[in-house]
């Protein structure tokens, strides 16, 4: 495409700069996590793993990790249980008002989290569901179900319904078809929906700020409140741990799914 070598070099330089900008905070956080100072400075002047020790010594972070993990796990499960049947209905059945139902199911994606957080606080405070695990889980459910519906719908729409018809022809019942044909075909969508739901819930900050409290403070809220008053390398160390965790999750799933797919064909 590019004929002039000068143009090609210019383009490479531009792209490199843009990528550098895009990845700058990650690179900085990574380097910063090995700094030995007690305040935020860059570049660091010493090398130590103290920041990593501090993360696990901090009681707020430890309990935050627990709250976020439990919340994200239960939220993911509930999002799958409620979202997958909806995706099945939206892709495999024809009924009146299907398009309207679909946009209703996806509409929470359009509402800003700051508004949803306040709205959930107003609804949950008198029950009272604020500062409880169930409050957090329900608050996260509303924003994760649409993602599950969307990814699973996309996977189901991509799967060939003729395979299901063939299974029916061969005498399989509806549940058997669902269990043996439809859901396996949609498995990549199910898994990616589950991962997205888990990561969204684990990372959810703004909604959690409104509905969480002293006894159930998820990790992002604990980090946000820590960063507001102090800035030391322990936050960087924590961020690096979280990045590695989510990258590992994605790689593992990609590998296992890829393996499964290659085994089947």
């Amino acid at each position, binding site marked *: 495409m590019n004929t002039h070598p000068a143009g090609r070099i210019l383009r490479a330089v531009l792209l490199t700069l843009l990528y550098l900008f895009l990845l*700058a*905070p990650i690179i900085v956080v990574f380097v910063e996590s090995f700094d030995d100072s007690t305040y*935020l400075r860059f570049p660091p002047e010493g090398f130590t793993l103290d920041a990593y020790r501090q993360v696990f010594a901090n009681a707020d972070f430890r309990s935050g990790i627990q709250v976020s993990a439990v919340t994200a796990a239960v939220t993911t499960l509930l999002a799958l249980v409620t979202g997958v049947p909806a995706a099945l209905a939206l892709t495999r059945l024809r009924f009146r008002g299907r398009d309207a139902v679909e946009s209703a199911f996806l509409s929470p994606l359009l509402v800003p989290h700051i508004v949803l957080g306040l709205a959930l606080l107003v609804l949950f405070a008198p029950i009272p569901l604020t500062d409880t695990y169930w409050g957090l889980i329900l608050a996260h459910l509303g924003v994760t179900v649409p993602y599950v519906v969307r990814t699973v719908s996309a996977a189901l729409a991509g799967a060939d319904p003729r395979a299901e*018809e063939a299974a029916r022809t061969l005498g399989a019942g509806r549940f058997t078809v669902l269990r043996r044909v439809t859901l396996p075909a949609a498995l990549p969508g199910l898994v990616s929906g589950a991962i997205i739901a888990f990561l969204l819930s684990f990372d959810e900050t703004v909604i959690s700020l409104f509905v969480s409290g002293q006894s159930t403070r998820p990790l992002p809220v604990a980090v946000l409140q820590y960063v*507001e008053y102090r800035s030391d390398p322990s936050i960087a160390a924590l961020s690096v741990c979280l990045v590695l965790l989510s990258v590992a999750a994605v790689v593992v799933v990609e590998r296992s799914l890829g393996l499964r797919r290659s085994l089947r064909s």
Partner: protein
Amino acid sequence: MSGTATAAGDTVPGPKGGPRTAASGDGARAPRGPRPGRTALFLLAPGALALLFTYAMPLVWVVRMALNEPLDGGAIRQTLTFGTFTQVLRDGHYWKVIGQTLQLGVLVTVFTLLLAYPVALFLARTTSRWRSLLMALAVAPLLISSVARTFGWMAILGNQGLINKTLQALALTDGPLPLANNMTGVVIASVEIYMPFAILAMISGFGRLEPELERAAASLGANRLAVLRRVVLPLTLPGVLTAALLVFVLSLSGYVTPRLIGGGRVFVLATEIYDEAITSLNWPVAAVLSVLLLVLFGIVIVLYQRAQRALERRFTGEKGASR
């Protein structure tokens, strides 16, 4: 084919005598149960119930809260009045907040589009074997908590940060440049945080872009700039428009970056809603600001749909003219 399928299927008893009764309603287009309506209701109910309680009801409750009257000390008088709305709309402070929110949204959207477009265009057109790696790198920041990335930007933009330290080491500036605790810092960090969203939205909207068209234009004598302006840009406009909507809407409602990088000196609707609700315990005013933010969202989405339709018309019009 489909007829035989259902007929054969019906000779097998349904699991637990499910709602499947006869094949009478089965058309060629609905290979499933005879009463799709009832099955659909059954399948949609759990999700609908979940969203009713975690999304629809809260929104109704917050709109209702906006019609209450705040009393001193966080107390609320249950009533039905637009008094809180008029109180907010008469207050110059809130207009300033709305103005700053829009200013932040516009600045972030413009810069994000400018920076994301070359990357998206490159990723959409390249045939390099590094393509999937570069694609992964471009969207990798999405995997990382925005709190962590904002923290990274604090380390870059702060008075003791990377930029100011470098500038001072090179003796280019006397004091630190004010890059954090103000609008500049919030814009810089927000642009980076929304860039992956913009890149993804652009690439998925670049469907009309085909290398043949560019080659055709070039072979007909158009220079590179003309190809870019007359072929590439119009064909990628739908993707750019979607990215613009996404980034604008996200930055209008962003909370973490304005709060952390703004250092309590940048007031936007999101930080104001939180402060009113949690610090001042003034739920009615927080609810009014939320409703105003939703109205703003509504206006933006309507404008987007209009622009999209206009774009669509232009495309079909051009096609019609060329035939």
